[in-house]
């Protein structure tokens, strides 16, 4: 039966290709004469049991066939024949055909990171030889070296053209975003994540323990088949599946300790005060007005507690009255302390973070089925006091062959995450918002910690380091027992809390019907269901313990957000090899539907009497405020197709097309089509004889378009929303005219891109590189531009923008040393991208760009992130130093003059990349991963804040007279200022430090933003790991034990602003008072049964 099977196909196809079939018939007839020739089937796998797709299997001196994506092949051979098995990235192997009709071929990889197969759009596995665009794959082994818990950090530095927009580890639950190839639109676009074919818009619930490998599709050429959502590139994640017929049990444990790695550079010479010439105050006890216990402090000195700045008296080691000495009820009441420096007070405020990550997985493969079940529990204690996170993930990846031709596959992941604590990382927050903007450098943080919860005064309020000064002539007022601006930060972390829960189910169920060898149809249902709930509590004691704060009321709020996405997908695949030609086609359709519901409610006007700390909406004094309920829904219908024709495994032609219909576009024009075409040419085929060192060489070129709707649901129709319930004036509802008008003739936008590339490998893949040039133009970008409010609206949305990006990406792999016991692998990547704004609109030559949090710049508007016509995308615009011939202009007061609205540089790097080194010696392994960036700008509000308030080291530096800048001008102090006068004459003078640094006060309105613009260049070591691996060859139970020590962010060889890590900024444009950067060390223990 077996050997006539191919015959059947050809006969049935004969009506289409009669001549061909006839030829084959003749050929087959002749083959049938040799009765010993039979069909051998088999699978090519690598040393780890993973299939080697698209391997070439050839009878020595005879015919060859190509294996499919899963390494399965079928070839005609006779007993004793020698099969030559070769593939990209593996060593060639010879296998002799025996009596059996099946052969299992195990090959060794030349380089673990250079696979011959990549996962492309829609999860289609394809041969590296055939891909006409850049794609880069990273295996789980390389991703999980340092046991990162989130994917975005794990990918940092490992992909050319990838930039991670991360966040300090102190902010639990924030996994950041990925920017690929700079900016391709006027607005910020981030990469999409696709897990086993199911789309996720962020990486928060991608469990690293379930990731088998990651493939990054960067531009339209690679992502065209994904359609409109893939505008920012796609990160394709393939999860682990069962590989072995024996049950495999893996247990993986990691414990990581995290600590503050760096802070800004502070001064430690001067303490609290806000005066140009700080003086001590002396307390004179008056029994008529002062509490009796204060007599102990009579005649002692103190400084201005109510000021939250460090322009105070010089730290001299003498005795003084600290803030807490005035208050009763603790061991230090009414006692003076030594006035001494506290260089590490900020670092010491933070706790040590602790992360424990346990994963257990069980997998097994049977003849007709396979399963893998995995459970992960991550428990984190944050660095911020009173913060924690825990997360459970249960996932399964299973399949069953219902019949020989019908396969059911189910992948499902359930995640539940809980985060507790307040992680506010913006200006004015009670922790870093104070430490980097408004603080006393001499603050003894141990005392803050010890005295947390201390209640004082007539109203039993929380004691604060920043209370109103005592008076020699007045009795202490109620305000004396309150925080002037700030509370003890430890108290704030206790009495202002936020809690959130997220549940998510992501998964798919698919049925695949293998109609015949060549043709299969797959139908899949995919879903992504997420519910997030949140609660915030502000205790009454906070409300009453502050003097100068708005909205001083206790409050409780609840929010809920639901997102439900379904996709129905039908894909047919046809794969056929006919003599010298291979033909692969995929075509199908998709229906996407999503809907979301967001709502929030909060108490209003404080709590009812007697319900002071009863946190429920029913405690609300006034009608509960409703944030509104936002409903949203969208549908997209798509049909798509792709065909690849290969000739002799060296020349490929790729064509694809996709048509989308989006419900959010104007109903008259809601469909759009975009094609792509590409080719790849494996030229090494012809050169191996002349250049034996060349193991692989490929040229590729492609052109593609990708369309997007870039519009939210309902936006196209102007609607009027009436007030409802408590939001109504009595019983009279009201509604306003919407402020945004959307062009009713809005069109979908279109990115057109071409890219060319060259991939080469030498010396049996010991050295390889891949180079890509791309050029992309986005036309008719949808711009929501501010318009003069006098028009009656404030925003108009229309198609006018155009952005052009082009760039070069390089990847380089090498195994410089490889001996029996020792090997060294190195991977290096580099990329340079230009994202140029050709056009914004006729009204405006700029448009503001929102960061991840929806803000367009810092709290005070020092900088605004913008796309400005004629410039690199992502300009920071703000006040710059006024200059004449490059020299700053200085006014008669010795202070800098400025120009408004100056582009201060783009946030995008000139170039960036990463370096990965892996060393193996016997069972030992050492890996180190670095990433780097050159250029790009960021703005630091903390820098401005801490200049203004005398916190930074430069505010108490030694000048060129050898005197402290804070010393009087008369005795050689002051900041040396050079520049020109407004009429261009040279100017050189000393300015009192207080006056000089006070010009950088955010509080008095904006200051010169340029003073806090930093170059975002850096080189950092992202992770280092040392491991010991032992494989138990003879044990029936234990298979493998791996122990490793890991370090994340261990050191930074170079950076321009040591206070912040440009790769871990809270906002696209910089930082707004963010939490300090962290470093962590951990131990990983992995055992396989």
């Amino acid at each position, binding site marked *: 039966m077996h050997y006539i099977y191919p015959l059947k196909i050809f006969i*049935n196809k004969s009506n289409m290709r009669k001549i061909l079939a006839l030829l084959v018939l003749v050929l087959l007839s002749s083959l049938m004469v040799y009765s010993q020739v039979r069909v051998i089937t088999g699978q090519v796998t690598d040393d780890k049991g993973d299939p080697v797709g698209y391997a070439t299997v050839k009878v020595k001196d005879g015919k060859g066939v190509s294996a499919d994506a899963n390494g399965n092949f079928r070839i005609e051979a006779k007993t004793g024949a020698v099969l030559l098995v070769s593939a990209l990235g593996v060593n060639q192997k010879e296998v002799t055909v025996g009596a059996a009709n099946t052969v299992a071929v195990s090959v060794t990889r030349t380089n673990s990171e250079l696979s011959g197969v990549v996962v492309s759009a829609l999860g289609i596995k394809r041969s590296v030889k055939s891909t006409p665009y850049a794609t880069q794959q990273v295996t789980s082994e390389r991703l999980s070296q340092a046991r990162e818990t989130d994917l975005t950090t794990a990918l940092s530095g490992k992909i050319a053209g990838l930039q991670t927009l991360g966040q300090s580890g102190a902010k639990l639950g924030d996994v950041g975003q990925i920017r690929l190839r700079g900016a391709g639109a006027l607005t910020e676009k981030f990469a999409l994540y696709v897990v086993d074919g199911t789309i996720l818009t962020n990486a928060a619930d991608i469990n690293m323990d379930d990731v088998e490998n990651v493939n990054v599709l960067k531009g339209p050429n690679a992502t065209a088949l994904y359609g409109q959502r893939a505008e920012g590139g796609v990160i394709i994640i393939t999860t682990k599946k069962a590989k072995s017929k024996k049950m495999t049990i893996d247990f993986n444990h990691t414990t990581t300790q995290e600590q503050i790695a760096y802070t800004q550079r502070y001064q430690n010479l001067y303490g609290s005060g*806000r005066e140009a010439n700080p003086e001590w105050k002396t307390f004179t006890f008056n029994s008529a007005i002062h509490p009796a216990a204060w007599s102990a402090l009579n005649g002692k000195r103190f400084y201005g507690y*109510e000021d939250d700045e460090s322009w105070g008296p010089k730290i001299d080691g003498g005795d003084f009255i600290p803030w807490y000495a005035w208050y009763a009820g603790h061991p230090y009441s009414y006692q003076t302390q030594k006035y001494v420096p506290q260089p590490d007070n900020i670092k010491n405020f933070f706790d040590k973070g602790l992360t424990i990550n346990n994963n257990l997985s069980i997998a097994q493969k049977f003849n007709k089925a396979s399963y893998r079940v995995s459970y992960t529990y991550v428990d984190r204690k944050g660095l911020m006091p009173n913060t924690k996170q825990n997360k459970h993930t249960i996932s399964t990846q299973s399949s069953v062959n219902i019949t020989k031709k019908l396969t059911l596959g189910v992948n499902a992941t359930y995640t539940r995450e809980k985060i507790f604590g307040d992680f506010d990382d913006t200006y004015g927050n009670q922790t870093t918002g104070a430490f980097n903007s408004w603080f006393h450098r001499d603050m003894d943080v141990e005392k803050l910690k010890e005295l947390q919860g201390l209640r004082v005064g007539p109203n039993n309020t929380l004691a604060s380091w920043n209370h*109103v000064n005592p008076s020699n002539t*007045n009795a202490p007022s*109620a*305000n004396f027992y309150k925080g002037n601006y700030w509370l003890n930060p430890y108290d704030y972390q206790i009495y202002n809390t936020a809690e959130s829960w997220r549940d998510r189910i992501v998964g798919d169920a698919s049925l695949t019907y293998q*109609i*015949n060898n060549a*043709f299969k*149809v797959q139908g899949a249902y995919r879903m992504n269901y997420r519910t997030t709930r949140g609660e915030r509590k502000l205790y009454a004691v906070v409300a009453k313990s502050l003097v100068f704060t708005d909205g001083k*009321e206790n409050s409780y709020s609840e929010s809920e957000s639901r997102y439900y996405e379904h996709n129905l997908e039908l894909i*047919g695949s*046809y794969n056929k090899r006919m003599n010298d030609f291979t033909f692969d086609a995929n*075509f199908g*359709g998709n229906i996407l539907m999503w809907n979301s519901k967001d709502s929030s409610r909060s108490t209003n*006007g404080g709590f009812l009497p007697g319900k002071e700390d009863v946190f429920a909406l029913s405690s609300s004094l006034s009608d509960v*405020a409703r944030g509104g309920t936002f*409903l949203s829904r*969208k*549908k997209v*219908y798509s*049909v798509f197709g792709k065909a690849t024709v290969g000739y002799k495994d060296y020349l490929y032609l790729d064509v694809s097309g996709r*048509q989308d*219909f989006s*419900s*959010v576009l104007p*109903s008259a*024009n*809601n*469909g759009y089509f975009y094609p792509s075409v590409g080719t790849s040419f494996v030229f090494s085929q012809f050169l191996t004889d002349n250049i034996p060192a060349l193991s692989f060489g490929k040229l590729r070129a492609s052109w593609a378009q990708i369309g997007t709707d870039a519009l939210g*649901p309902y936006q*196209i*129709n102007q*609607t*009027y*929303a*009436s007030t409802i319930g*408590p939001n109504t*004036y*009595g019983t*009279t*509802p*009201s*509604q*306003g*005219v919407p*402020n945004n008008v959307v062009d009713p003739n809005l069109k979908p936008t279109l990115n057109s891109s071409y890219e060319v590339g060259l991939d080469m490998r030498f010396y049996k893949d010991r050295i390889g590189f891949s180079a890509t040039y791309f050029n992309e133009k986005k036309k008719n970008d949808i711009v929501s531009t*501010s*318009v*003069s*409010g*006098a*028009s*009656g*609206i404030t925003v108009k949305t229309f198609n006018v923008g155009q952005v052009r990006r082009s760039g070069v990406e390089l990847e380089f792999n090498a195994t410089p040393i490889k001996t029996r016991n020792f090997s060294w692998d190195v991977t290096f990547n580099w990329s340079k991208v230009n994202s140029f704004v050709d056009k914004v609109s006729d*009204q*405006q030559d700029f448009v503001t760009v929102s960061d991840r949090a929806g803000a367009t710049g810092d709290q005070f508007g020092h900088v605004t992130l913008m796309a400005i016509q004629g410039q690199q995308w992502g300009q920071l615009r703000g006040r710059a130093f006024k200059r004449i011939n490059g020299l700053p202009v200085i006014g008669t007061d010795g202070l800098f003059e400025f120009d408004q609205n100056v582009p201060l540089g783009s946030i995008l790097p000139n170039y960036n990349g990463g370096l990965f080194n892996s060393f193996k010696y016997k069972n030992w392994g050492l890996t180190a991963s670095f990433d780097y960036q050159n250029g790009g700008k960021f703005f630091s509000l903390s820098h401005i804040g801490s200049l203004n308030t005398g916190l930074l080291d430069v505010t108490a530096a030694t000048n060129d007279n050898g005197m402290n800048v804070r010393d009087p001008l008369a005795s050689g102090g002051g900041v040396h200022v050079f520049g020109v006068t407004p009429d261009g004459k040279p100017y050189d003078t000393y300015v009192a430090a207080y006056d000089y640094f006070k010009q950088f006060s955010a509080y*008095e*309105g904006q200051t010169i933003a340029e003073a806090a613009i930093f170059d975002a260049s850096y080189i950092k070591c992202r992770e280092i790991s040392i491991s010991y691996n032992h494989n138990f060859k003879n044990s029936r139970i234990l298979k493998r034990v791996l122990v490793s020590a890991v370090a994340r962010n261990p050191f930074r060889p170079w950076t321009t602003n040591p206070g912040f890590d440009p790769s871990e900024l809270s906002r696209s444009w910089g930082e707004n008072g963010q939490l300090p950067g962290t470093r962590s060390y951990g131990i990983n223990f992995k055992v396989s049964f």
Partner: protein
Amino acid sequence: MQTKNLIAATIAFASIAIASCKKTDFGDYNINPSPVVSSFPNTAELFTNACISAGYGLATNGDETGFYVQYFMNVNYPNNALYQTTNLGWNGYYAGPLMDLQRIIELNTSSDASNPKVTSNGSAANQLAAARILKAYYYSLVTDKWGNVPYKAALKLDINPAYDLQQNIYPDLIKELKEAEAQFDGGTPMKGDILGNGSIAKWKKFANSLRMVLAMRMVKADATQAKAEFLSAYNDADGYIATNADNFFYQPLSNLNYSSYWYLQYRNRDEVGMSSTFIDWLRVNNDKRINIYANRNANNNFVGIPYGRSASFLSNWKNSNDYSRIGAAITAFDCKANLITASQMLLTKAEAEIRGFIGTPSDAGVSMKAAIKASWDQWGVIYTQTELDNYASGANTAPSLVVNDMIAKIGLQKWVALYPNGHEAWSEWRRLGSPALTPAVDAINDTRTIPRRYAYPLNEPQLNGVSYNAANALLAPLGDVHNNKVWWDK
């Protein structure tokens, strides 16, 4: 095998068929399913929305301008009293109540006028009249703040609207008021009217009163027209706001979304208090309104915060916490926000009398005393006739027949009567030059003088460049700065 080909052919054919379309019908999928959202507006709800704005910062309760006229002072963030703000955004007016009112006017004058969401909310004439009057009110605030502003070309979705001269805007506002006042018919009054509560008579009085105020505002720039328009409004048979019962106000509610502006702003704030300028004047002149306007300090005294001093200077004030806060009656949740009051109109009448527009100059004293009484009554001041007589004959309040002297006294009384409405008080101070205010000692603006207008919104040069440049050129030589004067401010 036949099946396979059939499937392939079907899919291929379907793909081509679908791909060749430009569109697909999603039904009402892109219509917001929320029951409170609709694609067609309701004129009554738009009108309510425009009325509500009158109670807040845009109209009757500018605390920034309240700092300019030295009603208030802040010990911790005194920037408003130091004239830090130069440019001010105007989207809140144009893209707020003005656009809502414009839409009501458009709906009633287009083919949409027959839509039930329009017709059920009052006769077209009544809707148009009420909307035009309120629109004129908001526009008067806009032009008084910035001077020459987009007017004729505004609110028409033209994203580069040209500016009009204030001397052209003022007559048009007066014309609008005049026409609208005459436009009301006997049909159903405007629905959703939370200011006039459906009383056409109240709207007519408001329109006439506003016309008198605006006419008088032009008195230095164009005395002839000012007089003519004043007389026209004053003599209108429908009358003007002459008693407290006619006062035109926004009534705040206990619901925090609609509580009084001052309640929302300052109910829990310690750092804002009364300015020494205002409290000292009230105290020295034995004005009984001091008991309403301000709270006593801990020592039971009325003490103002030194006006116009820096935060560092005020450190000890903050420390002692020994200053009068804004009065409990003002920060009560239901404190009315007055658009126009009887006391304000009686003072305007007094000015017309001393200027000889109406009556005889000696009538001005009578009107002023009536205004004082109206103001005291309005605030519920408890007084004896003797106290009122004594106050009205005090050095700063006794009537005078010397025109400038009397006008200065009227200015003082307007200043006191308009509290806490900073917008109107600032406009009248600019026009009358009374009270004589000393600019902030620690002023941080370049000229260290009290602002006379707002500079245009910061983004206007970019968003509306050509029009802005033309408008800016008209402001030469000083340019678009806040110490330049508007047309009527001579």
